[in-house]
């Protein structure tokens, strides 16, 4: 019997993406932004689709179906009913967004066929089913409770489902406008960060603050029932009837107008960040307790944008409500493409789900994007005359990289298939020495071109994770925050600015908090990635070599990009980013490039204008 090949797509809202599955096995997945070089690109993912088709060696007319991750009729139902509910307010929103919804989003089938130039069957499914499927099907669990939480998809903002074998049943939902994701986004905006990209910053800001507003949030903004369900008081929000997510009443509740973007962050923003983080954790715990009670399952799968809140995930893990967690690394809308492909494969086409592997999931480290062979890399370098040295032996190459890191160098590391999801996991990463107190500042100012109050994230050899972090499970996708072990922690030096004053955040972040200061947050936490040899052997070899040289099995891992730029995809992207920053070494597969051996890029002086700041 011919295999069932399904292409999933997500687009037109945030982070468009494509994914392809053959007989329920994930072949490829990628976000459009990596190809278009436009961060969070919501447009039709034509380049991501092309890549997926190439990776699967199929033509569009060989697809059994293209599955769109959302139900446009149900989404349009919400749009129209929201308009009617707030009329005569909301006319401006409608005028601005109506044309694109009416002309494109209602005609997804036509759009897909026009783009693919083939009369392929186009299916629509539900947004939160796509999220649920993206987490459950690749998980190592035969059955599990599934929670999805995001801003909104059609009407649902939260869903509770149960997965058993090849089947997912959605049990209940919480509906728009009551949304934990939108509540968090309201605070993101109010604190001066961009919605849909600044949530990480707000989460990173939280440890500096005191949660003195949490009661106000839980008394006025969000009401929570004992069964975890919640409602927002829409009197405080603007997203139903204006183009801004908060309103004057919200501003009055929190003592003034929103912080202007890029202005100084004050005590209020720190405390608001801490407060909404605490409130979010409480709501997530309530939902999880209810999910456990209702489903009786011992495992939980999580997806939806809120599942990218790795601090809340860490709290959920430590509460032990469930025995095990699996979180989809592409938890946002991009992951909906993958979920749509998998859901249709199993639930529509009846493809059986393969037996689970208790030792790992089906995501293969989330390395689901394009790879470039050594021959392709060499051809690129030779064509442009870029100086490089090929070091084919993995161990020798890893030792050369480790030596550079030990010497305080910053290394761009490009290896294997690109990650699917927002985190760089050692395929498109910039690496540094976490022991060096200067690494944080150096990498921020000379590589990322930002001043960040957030520390970098660590990658650690999975087998030595427990030496550094209080984390007794693997965290391959950097979705769990855990404390640095107490014996490694350092008190703030005498005379150092206190973490709870209205002072310069950068001064605080520069205080060494542990023997791996570049990755230790002010509250001694770290956003951990555990690295296994069998999943990413090249990256594991680098960490192993660094550990042999220094005794430390941890490196700094930050995404291979500059601020506002999507993570690099191709050798060209990587070389350009390498040359535009003060990175010292670039690793392109088995080719090593040193900065001092390169000629400056010509006519590249205005590159910073290419990227809007995030």
């Amino acid at each position: 019997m011919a295999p069932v090949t399904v292409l999933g797509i997500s687009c037109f809202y945030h982070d468009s993406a494509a994914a392809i599955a053959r007989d329920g096995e994930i072949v490829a997945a990628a976000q459009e932004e990596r190809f278009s070089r436009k961060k969070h690109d919501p447009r039709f993912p034509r380049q991501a689709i092309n890549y997926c088709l190439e990776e699967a060696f199929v033509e569009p007319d060989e697809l059994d179906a293209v599955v769109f991750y959302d139900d446009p009729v149900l989404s349009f139902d919400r749009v129209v009913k929201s308009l009617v509910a707030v009329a005569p307010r909301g006319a401006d929103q409608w005028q601005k967004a109506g044309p694109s919804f009416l002309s494109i989003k209602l005609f997804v089938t036509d759009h897909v066929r026009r783009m693919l130039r083939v009369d392929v069957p186009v299916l629509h499914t539900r947004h939160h089913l796509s999220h649920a499927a993206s987490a459950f099907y690749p998980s190592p669990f035969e059955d599990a409770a599934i929670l999805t939480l995001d801003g909104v998809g059609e009407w649902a903002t939260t869903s509770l489902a149960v997965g058993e074998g090849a089947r997912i049943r959605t049990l209940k939902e919480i509906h728009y406008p009551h949304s934990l994701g939108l509540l968090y986004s309201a605070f993101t905006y109010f604190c001066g960060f961009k919605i849909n990209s600044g949530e990480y910053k707000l989460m990173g800001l939280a440890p500096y603050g005191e949660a003195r507003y949490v009661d106000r949030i839980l008394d006025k903004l969000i009401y929570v029932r004992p069964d975890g369900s919640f409602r927002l008081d829409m009197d405080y929000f603007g997203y139903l009837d204006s183009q801004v997510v908060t309103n004057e009443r919200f501003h009055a509740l929190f003592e003034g107008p929103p912080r202007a973007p890029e202005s100084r962050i004050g005590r209020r923003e720190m405390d608001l960040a801490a407060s909404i983080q605490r409130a979010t954790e409480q709501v997530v715990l309530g939902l999880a307790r209810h999910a456990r009670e209702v489903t009786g399952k011992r495992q939980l799968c999580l997806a939806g944008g809120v599942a990218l809140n790795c601090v809340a995930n860490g709290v959920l893990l430590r509460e032990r409500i469930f025995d095990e967690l699996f979180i989809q690394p592409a938890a946002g809308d991009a992951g909906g493409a993958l979920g749509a492909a998998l859901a249709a494969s199993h639930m529509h086409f009846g493809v059986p789900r393969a037996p689970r592997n208790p030792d790992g999931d089906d995501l293969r480290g989330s390395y689901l994007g394009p790879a470039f062979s050594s021959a392709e890399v060499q051809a690129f370098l030779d064509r442009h005359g870029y100086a490089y040295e090929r070091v084919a032996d993995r161990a020798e190459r890893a030792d050369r990289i480790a030596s550079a890191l030990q010497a305080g160098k910053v290394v761009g590391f490009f290896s294997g298939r690109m990650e699917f999801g927002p985190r760089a996991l050692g395929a498109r990463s910039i690496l540094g020495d976490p022991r060096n107190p200067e690494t944080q500042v150096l990498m921020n100012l000379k590589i990322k071109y930002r001043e960040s109050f957030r520390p970098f994230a660590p990658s650690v050899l999975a087998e030595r994770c427990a030496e550094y972090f209080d984390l007794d499970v693997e965290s391959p996708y950097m979705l769990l925050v855990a404390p640095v072990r107490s014996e490694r922690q350092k008190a703030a030096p005498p005379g150092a600015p206190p973490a709870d004053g209205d002072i310069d955040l950068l001064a605080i972040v520069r205080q060494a908090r542990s023997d791996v200061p570049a990755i230790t947050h002010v509250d001694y936490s770290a956003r951990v990635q555990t690295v296994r040899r069998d999943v990413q052997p090249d990256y594991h070899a680098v960490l192993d070599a660094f550990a042999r040289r220094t005794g430390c099995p941890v490196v700094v891992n930050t995404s291979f990009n500059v601020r506002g730029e999507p993570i690099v995809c191709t050798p060209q992207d990587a070389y350009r980013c390498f040359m535009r920053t003060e990175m010292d070494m670039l690793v392109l597969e088995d080719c090593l490039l040193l900065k001092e051996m390169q000629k400056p890029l010509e006519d590249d002086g205005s590159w910073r204008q290419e990227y809007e700041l995030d």
Partner: protein
Amino acid sequence: MSSTDDAARVRRFYEEHIAPAAARLAARGGSFFPLGPTPEPSWWVLPHEGAEFYRLENAQLEAALRERWRDVPELAALAPHLVELARSLEVQSEDDGEISPFVYVMY
């Protein structure tokens, strides 16, 4: 026809169709969702009914909207006009791809 014309027509549609429908609904006390807490012990709801996977061809759109709004005559009456408007609009260019930093994109 330019996108500016389209925006004006969409605005006019709001004024001529949506706002009056809203007024009719309000007059009979209809509402679609609560705007805050209500006394029920739980705020979980059942998922919307309907197939988990379905095909939606261009020609089926009006019927799909009518079906969705079968209990709301004010909206069901809008369906043919909305579809006519939708079909008449220039397909919006995707070239921009800009996302407002201030709005969670939910339209």
